[in-house]
């Protein structure tokens, strides 16, 4: 019981003083009835004085905190000193207010207990920011641990619980070392101590191979980053712990991929330094990887390409995408001993946490180059050989045919006149016929050999006009044999005109020659477009379009077993007495079809007729 205090200034009443206090002051009787509120209390709880006076203190208690009231009451009754504490109250609108409460007993002048005096301080904002802080912590994807300057954990978040398998209550107050295997503890402690000497954020992690230790004893790789935390209560350390098991796995996978790549893989950073290479690089360039990691990538390139490379690099940096370097150029790499070898390089960008890198896949193409050169040589030799063949064909054309012609003329002369006897005439006749056959043979052979070496290009042509022209050349023979050529619908085809003319000529000639005696020959010619897939044969490409030409006759036909043979050179199925011919006619036809990259097949029934099916590829989709 204190004596009445004296005021210096008697014009200021106690009441005024109480009203000036910023904190809310509420006095209640032992029953709980509110008997006094100050202005601050009205403000805080948004009631008027009248609304509060006389009411039970319950009115500012949130429903769940009834027990608190009872506890307070008990403490007051028992004369216990009540520590200040933080709690929750509600205002007039049922809104929660966080307050710091200071309780004291109200005694009368005799010292008898009359009630309670409560001083309440609004700490909603502080709580909010604490709450915000708490929420931040909880929402962090990494485990967050706050330690004091004794390395004791004062706050952990849910992720920490999850990651390490502990309840936060198990960790509060414990040494942060609890989360780390023994062998790393000292490292961690030293790391934390540093903050109190030099507070800067730093990352402690993979390069130091730190591991975390779960409650169940399992270890896992982690990356740790710490920062200082300045709170009212003092200097703390906030540490984020990230489980990098996946990252380590991925890195290992990546490295594995790199090592297993068949090409030399060189990973270069923005400063043009080699960061990573694989075993193939070591083998190809004959360096140990330690010798080239950290060096400029130019050490792998011969001097004369360095400028090209730096130019290409600049382009690449401005537009990074996967592409080949120096397309169409001869690039070379240089080994440790200075030997050069031809390479193909393809670049692709890699995004890593450390920034953009460039991955270069380098392939030794010495073998390919060698093959390419060989192929080139072969092509050149072939070209020469073709030229020689053409020359030969030309020479044969003149130099062989000339004497032949003369033989024919002279023997012909012999037959015209009465120079010789009947017997003599017979022999000259035979010579003449033989020479004649030889002439046809030479011509056919020349035609055959010149088919593939023509300079004429494939053009889209109207088959109808060609067939009609060829038909005209046979007009006499058609009349003689009472034969008919029916020309059906003919589509356009991509062909070498004079060769197709020859083809038609040969086929029609054959059809007329191999007709059945007594039966007027009927030849049908048609051509229509079709798709490769229409013919159930693997000889045609299914999605290619073809012009299907068919030439059919009603002649003597070809036996099944000979149907393949007929296209052979000098293949004849009949003796010369039966049917004249050099046996090259169909060989020429087939060669022409081959020259157009087409297909020819024959179907026939003995003594009924024969049909030749020709499939010529159409170049353009129409």
């Amino acid at each position, binding site marked *: 019981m204190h004596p009445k205090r004296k005021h210096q200034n008697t014009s200021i009443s106690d009441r005024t003083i109480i009203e000036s206090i910023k904190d809310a002051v509420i006095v209640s009787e032992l029953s709980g009835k509110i008997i006094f509120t100050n202005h601050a209390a009205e403000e805080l709880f948004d009631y008027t004085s009248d609304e509060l006076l006389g009411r039970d203190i319950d009115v500012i208690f949130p429903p769940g905190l009834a027990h608190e009231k009872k506890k307070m009451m008990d403490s007051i009754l028992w004369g216990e000193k009540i520590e200040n504490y933080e709690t929750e109250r509600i205002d007039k609108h049922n809104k929660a207010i966080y307050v710091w409460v200071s309780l004291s007993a109200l005694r009368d002048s005799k010292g008898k207990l009359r009630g309670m005096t409560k001083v309440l301080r609004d700490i909603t904002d502080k709580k909010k920011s604490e709450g915000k802080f708490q929420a931040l912590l909880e929402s962090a994807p990494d485990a967050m641990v706050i330690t004091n300057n004794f390395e004791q954990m004062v706050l952990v978040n849910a992720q920490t619980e999850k990651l390490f398998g502990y309840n936060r209550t198990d960790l509060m107050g414990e040494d942060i070392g609890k989360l780390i295997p023994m062998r790393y503890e000292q490292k961690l402690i030293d790391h934390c101590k540093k903050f109190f000497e030099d507070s800067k954020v730093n990352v402690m992690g993979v390069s130091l191979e730190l591991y975390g230790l779960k409650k169940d004893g399992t270890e896992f790789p982690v990356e740790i980053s710490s920062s200082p935390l300045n709170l009212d209560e003092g200097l703390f350390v906030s540490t984020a712990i990230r489980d990098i098991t996946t990252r380590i796995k991925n890195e290992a996978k990546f490295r594995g991929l790199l090592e297993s790549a068949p090409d030399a893989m060189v990973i270069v950073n923005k400063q043009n330094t080699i960061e990573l290479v694989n075993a193939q690089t070591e083998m190809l360039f004959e360096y140990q990887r330690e010798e080239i990691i950290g060096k400029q990538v130019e050490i792998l390139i011969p001097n004369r390409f360095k400028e090209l490379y730096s130019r290409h690099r600049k382009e690449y940096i401005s537009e990074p995408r996967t592409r080949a370097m120096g397309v169409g150029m001869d690039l070379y790499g240089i080994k440790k001993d200075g030997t050069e070898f031809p390479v193909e390089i393809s670049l692709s960008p890699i995004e890593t946490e450390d920034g953009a890198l460039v991955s270069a896949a380098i392939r030794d193409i010495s073998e390919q180059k060698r093959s390419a050169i060989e192929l080139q040589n072969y092509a050149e030799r072939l070209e020469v050989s073709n030229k020689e063949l053409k020359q030969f064909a030309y020479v044969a*054309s*003149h130099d062989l*045919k*000339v004497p*032949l*012609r*003369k033989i*024919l*003329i002279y023997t*012909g*002369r012999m037959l*015209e006149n009465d120079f010789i006897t009947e017997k003599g005439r017979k022999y000259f006749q035979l010579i003449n016929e033989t020479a004649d056959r030889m*002439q046809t043979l030479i011509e056919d052979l020349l035609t055959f050999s010149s088919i593939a070496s023509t300079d004429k290009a494939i053009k889209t042509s109207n088959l109808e006009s060609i067939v009609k022209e060829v038909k005209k050349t046979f007009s006499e023979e058609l009349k003689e044999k009472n034969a008919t050529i029916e020309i059906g619908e003919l589509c356009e085809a991509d062909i070498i005109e004079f060769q197709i003319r020859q083809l038609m000529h040969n086929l029609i000639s054959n059809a007329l020659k191999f007709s059945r005696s007594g039966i007027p020959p009927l030849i049908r010619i048609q051509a229509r477009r079709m798709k490769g897939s229409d013919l159930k044969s693997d000889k045609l490409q299914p999605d290619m379009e073809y012009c299907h030409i068919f030439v059919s006759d009603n002649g003597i036909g070809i036996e099944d077993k000979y149907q393949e043979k007929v296209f052979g050179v000098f293949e004849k199925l009949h003796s010369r007495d039966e049917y004249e011919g050099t046996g090259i006619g169909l060989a020429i036809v087939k060669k022409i079809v081959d020259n157009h990259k087409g297909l020819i097949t024959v179907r026939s029934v003995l003594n009924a007729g024969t049909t030749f099916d020709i499939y010529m590829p159409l170049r353009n989709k129409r």
Partner: protein
Amino acid sequence: MGTPTIQTTNIILAEDDTDDAFLFNEAIDELSLAVELTIVSDGEQLMERISNETIQLPDVIFLDINMPRKNGLECLSEIRVSKRLYNLPVIIISTSYDEEIVNQLYINGADYYIQKPSVFEALKNVIHLALNLISEKNQLQPPKESFVLTDKKAKMALR
């Protein structure tokens, strides 16, 4: 003299092949035409002869293509640019038949083209036809369709 003489046609044959020259001669003989035949065996000889102003120009030249020293094509070109010779009728008589070469000869101004036949009778026919056509003394080069003389055409024309 007062007696009218039969007009002889003066022919020069430029032909290096002895057989062909012989056959040509035989053909002319058998045709029994009034013909005076001179044979030269290469292009140089031909040009020397017709450039010689002391010798009378021929009425027609039968020209082989493949000759040593100077070939038929060269001779044709020289003839057609010469002021004195350009009007001379020139008939090509050749072993082969090549579309492009025939075209080239037509463009260069040959009058007719004959491919040497392998039947004697045909040789006679085409030579006969050629001489008939030349005797019509047309100043202009014939149209392309009539350029090539064949035995077939000859038979039809000489019927």
